[in-house]
């Protein structure tokens, strides 16, 4: 029992230490994004654009694909249920609200965490084991400025954009079922969607996507910067990065949903 308690205690201390270190990295990254530019040390625009291209543009096809099929699936499931009460046309609004409030930001974040979070950890981790990060420090160049800040800024810009793509494509998936299976007129389907959508549904989804972006960037970069043990270490950290990102996305999503539910 004592041994078990000790194990729990050590794990808790380890977790707090990790959170502390990650918070330090986050604070420094925020400094390089929002404060340093006003002191004549701008975040490297070229690096940010490169990352935006890699993270954002590169993720559009897969985010669109996942959300399109999810839109179709959701439309089929809900219309099947709504058929019981004879209100199948409500499916349009239900798909719209589900995607803008929950599925769009959530699925976009999961795709980006798997695709981009892993890539961030692998890239930074490889740099760490090949002493590139040490070399940056020795040249008096801040690794957080060069590696973390551009990725965080790129994710902060691109994940909300990807969320909008996810929302639109998800609703198109729903429209396919509405139009070709339920034979709802196109303009009527669009009207039904917007009748049920309110502005709060859209902004709550986008706020969540910003929080997810912070989480993916932070976990990806932190896992990369703390890689130990060569190539095997990079592999372990990359896996941890994806797993932790997904867990934290689900937890944060739940917290935000609770918050938005009660306000």
């Amino acid at each position, binding site marked *: 029992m004592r041994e078990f308690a000790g194990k729990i205690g050590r794990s808790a201390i380890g977790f707090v230490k990790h959170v502390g270190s990650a918070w330090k990295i986050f604070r420094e990254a925020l400094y390089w994004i929002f404060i340093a530019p006003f002191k004549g040390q701008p975040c490297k625009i070229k690096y940010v654009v490169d990352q935006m291209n890699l993270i954002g543009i590169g993720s559009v096809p897969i985010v669109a694909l996942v959300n399109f099929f999810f839109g179709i699936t959701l439309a089929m499931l809900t219309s099947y249920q709504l058929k019981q009460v004879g209100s199948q046309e409500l499916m349009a609004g239900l798909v719209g609200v589900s995607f803008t409030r929950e599925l769009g930001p959530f699925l976009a974040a999961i795709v980006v965490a798997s695709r981009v979070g892993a890539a961030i950890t692998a890239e930074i981790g490889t740099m760490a084991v090949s002493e590139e990060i040490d070399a940056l420090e020795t040249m*008096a*160049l801040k690794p957080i400025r060069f590696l973390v800040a551009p990725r965080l800024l790129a994710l902060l810009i691109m994940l909300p954009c990807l969320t909008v793509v996810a929302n639109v494509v998800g609703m198109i998936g729903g429209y396919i079922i509405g139009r070709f299976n339920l034979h709802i007129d196109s303009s009527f389907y669009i009207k039904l969607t917007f009748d049920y959508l309110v502005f709060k549904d859209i902004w709550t989804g986008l706020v969540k996507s910003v929080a997810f972006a912070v989480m993916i960037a932070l976990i990806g970069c932190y896992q990369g910067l703390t890689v130990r043990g060569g190539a095997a270490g990079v592999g372990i950290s990359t896996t941890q990065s994806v797993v932790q990102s997904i867990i934290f996305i689900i937890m944060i999503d739940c917290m935000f949903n609770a918050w938005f539910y009660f306000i």
Partner: protein
Amino acid sequence: MPILEVKGVQKVFDNRKVLDGVNLSVEKGETMVIMGGSGCGKSTLLKIMIGQLKPDGGEVFIDGEEIVHLKDSEMDRVRLKFGMLYQGGALLNSLTLAQNVALPLTEHTRLDRKIIDIMVKMKLAQVGLAGFEKKMPSELSGGMKKRAALARAIALDPSIVFYDEPGAGLDPIVAAVIDRLIMDLSKKLGMTSVVVTHEMKSAFRIADKMAVLFKGRVIAYGTSDEIKNSDNPYVQQFIDGSLEAASVSAKDSTEEYIKSLVEGN
């Protein structure tokens, strides 16, 4: 006044004393070679000298300034006084050679882009890599990577250049080329070199002074001749590369290992 001074440096990892009161002094323009077997603490000492690791005790002076107690932002100012050649080169793989060498110049100087381009060409030519500006590190051999990394290390014309195993993983001819570059930097440009290595041939070729580390202590210190003629049995064993000697015997080590297995210690 020495340009680099290490006084009583100690470092403990997991209750194991890796450095136990190391003292060293390097004069301006001198090439100091720090030697020792694997795990003797030479890489730890190097990390402490460049401010990458804080010692548990002792002091390190670079150009008269004590660096152990400096804040990170203050340390950045000192970092501009030295360059570092890492074992694998540590070039940024996402940048071309020219971009790698230009990095410290663009970040720490206000020089015009055209001047930086000229300086980059000069630095690359200095290490025999003229015309390789647009190559990516992945397109280069190990020796070329190290030469490019050396060009980056000297981009800001530092007073001191630290080298971590400069000849590791290179064939003897390429290793000799790197040694020649180290000597040139010292003799022609007056740069101070601190080289950590365990390669004897290279060490005796380039060293003005040598220090031999053993179990976290400097057990021999002096010129190449003084080290060659040292009566310390470990130093002689290290130079000869022999298995049997008074300090560490392969036979003793093996017997001790078997004994520990049998006794389960």
